């Protein structure tokens, strides 16, 4: 054994070198949340671009169809939901991309902490700075599309709930395509079909609110979709990241 003169101090060091696997998952999750929040706040355009995209897409419809408020009112719930969904999708590509490029993703994967919990933290930040702002902005765009009164709160609430599912599902696609240099379009192809159930019940909730029907059922289903996504998606994202890094 080439290990020579063990000094007293060095022995103390050596004891500190070897570690049992230990807790600290909470610390790691909190640090990841904080780091991603700081990162996104420093690159504010990444937060603002999806919002501007949302507003811009909404603007195109009256110009392309008609500025007639009555016509716009009938298509507004679907339009708002589709545009918000596309805006959320647009921001997904960057979710793991920069971490992959600068090597922090492999460090994340090699951490002794539970990977699903860490990626859940990343997705939570994504929702907080994309899905939630989209949901809060939607009522303003609703005004512009002459969305009937009484459905604004439901619109924001359904988007807030639904976009959380969208972030979770989309992150699976983002994780699968992170290793590909031109993953953007492929990501949409993978993810959009999976978004359809959320779209159906989200836009449905707003329609129900307009017609004065109960919205509880729609929102409950959105909540159920979110619960399922919360339980399953983190593991799927973690597994997808492992596959991408291996490639």
């Amino acid at each position, binding site marked *: 054994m080439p290990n020579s003169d063990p000094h007293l101090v060095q022995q103390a060091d050596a004891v500190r070198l070897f570690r049992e696997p230990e807790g600290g998952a909470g610390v790691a999750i909190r640090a990841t949340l904080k780091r991603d929040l700081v990162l996104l706040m420093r*690159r*504010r*355009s990444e937060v*603002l*671009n999806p919002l*501007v995209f949302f*507003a*811009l897409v909404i*603007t195109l419809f*009256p*110009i392309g169809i*008609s*500025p*007639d*408020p009555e016509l716009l009112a009938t298509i507004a719930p679907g339009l708002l939901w589709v545009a918000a969904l596309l805006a959320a999708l647009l921001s997904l590509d960057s979710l793991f991309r920069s971490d992959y490029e600068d090597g922090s993703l492999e460090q994340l994967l090699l951490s002794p902490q539970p990977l699903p919990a860490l990626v859940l933290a990343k997705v939570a930040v994504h929702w907080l700075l994309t899905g939630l702002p989209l949901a809060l902005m939607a009522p303003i765009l609703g*005004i*512009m599309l*002459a969305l009937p009164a009484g459905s604004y709160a439901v619109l924001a609430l359904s988007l807030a709930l639904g976009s959380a599912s969208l972030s979770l599902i989309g992150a699976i696609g983002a994780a699968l395509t992170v290793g590909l240099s031109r993953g953007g379009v492929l990501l949409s192809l993978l993810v959009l079909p999976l978004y359809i159930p959320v779209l159906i019940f989200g836009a449905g909730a707003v329609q129900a609110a307009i017609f004065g029907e109960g919205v509880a059922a729609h929102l409950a289903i959105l909540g159920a979709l979110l619960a399922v996504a919360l339980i399953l998606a983190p593991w799927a994202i973690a597994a997808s990241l492992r596959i991408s890094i291996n490639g």
Partner: protein
Amino acid sequence: MWAFIHKLGSPKWFYGISARLSPWFWAAAALLIVVGSVWGLAFAPADYQQGNSFRIIYVHVPAAFLAQSIFVSMAIAGFVFMVWKIKVADMAAAMMAPLGAAMTFVALFSGAVWGVPTWGTWWMWDARLTSMLILLFLYFGVIALRGAFSSRDSASRAASVLAMVGVINIPIIKYSVDWWYTLHQPATFSVTSRPAMPVEMWVPLLIMVLGFYCFFIAVTLMRTRSEILRRESNKRWVRELAGEVT
């Protein structure tokens, strides 16, 4: 002439001259805006058709003017930067974009608020408001493009090109939106298009417009000075300046 342009282009010289100019513009802006607002709010007569909601014109129109002028100034600054490589022009252009977006927002917001008593709704796809909204998106595009580059030089050139493209596009957008609007809704009542105004109405408006322009110049000078400090922080004179301030 050339010597003058290059002197103007030197950040150090600009830093000094703008320090002397900007207090005047701040004072003029404050004075004109206060006088204009008080006049417009309290002394100008109410409109025979719209009543007192018409007073919103004294913030809506100056903001709308400024929103368009700032985009044009930004494009001119971009052109100067591209042709004569004058860095101060680019710094000023970078600082104008957020202010322009803010002014566009003010114009949109005051237009929307004005819409409630006039049309009974917060928003109409009225030709003017629609072009204003598109202008807001153009501003966002310029700001986002500038932020997207990691190299400052490419960011400056890209933003300059986009501003110039945008300024060529603005009239085209305006006319096409006008055409689109008349196609769908034969000329109804538009918020600001109106017959000739009496003197007691347009004088305060003129004062407000001038005040807003002074404000624009004052803010741009001040922020350009900050931007000079940011970009030239390695230059000797900036370091000496920082030393003096301590």
